[in-house]
């Protein structure tokens, strides 16, 4: 059973459209991260959110951590072909260890 569920699993949109990816869990996390992965490479960190309700912006990407620290969302405004990739959320367990659990991933394809 995956602790972190992402939706949608696949997303294909036209350039210029907006999209939102969701990351949900029944567990509470001390922090939540979003990574992006290109084919043949390891994931690369985009952002970390720590406080419940926190919102962070990275150019056209907006990240939000749920008030209860169990869920998060990634919103992309005016998607570009360069946004194509695999997006992964990851939660750091509250247990006090540095144990990170990843979501199931969302594969985004932005068409020109």
């Amino acid at each position, binding site marked *: 059973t995956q602790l*972190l569920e992402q939706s949608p699993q696949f997303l294909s949109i036209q350039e210029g459209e907006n999209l939102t990816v969701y990351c949900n869990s029944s567990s509470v996390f001390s922090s939540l*991260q979003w990574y992006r992965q290109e084919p043949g490479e*390891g*994931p690369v960190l985009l952002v970390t959110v720590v406080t419940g309700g926190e919102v962070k912006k990275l150019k056209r990407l907006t990240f939000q951590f749920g008030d209860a620290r169990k869920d998060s969302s990634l919103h992309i405004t005016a998607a570009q072909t360069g946004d194509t990739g695999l997006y*992964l959320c990851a939660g750091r367990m509250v247990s006090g260890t*540095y*144990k*990170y*659990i990843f979501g199931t*991933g969302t594969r985004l394809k932005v068409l020109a």
Partner: protein
Amino acid sequence: DAGITQSPRHKVTETGTPVTLRCHQTENHRYMYWYRQDPGHGLRLIHYSYGVKDTDKGEVSDGYSVSRSKTEDFLLTLESATSSQTSVYFCAISDTSGANVLTFGAGSRLTVL
């Protein structure tokens, strides 16, 4: 580059043979992790280490063992490889500065025939 190297990058082996994957870091980070990546599952934690000779199990540890005899090296061993262990394996490192950053290696693609 963050100074994390995985070897081998590609390996094909037969069912029942032992396999060891190596992760080497030059960052002196305390935490090291092994994940496997399969379609539809994202990344799943196999084992992680929080110091030399200190390791703990992750979500999918059955059939895998790890060792960390020095800070810079974290070894993942499949004692008797099975076809279900065909996957891409990623090593990651993290320090305890509170930055909450996992830095990943380039991955090791393992095929078990």
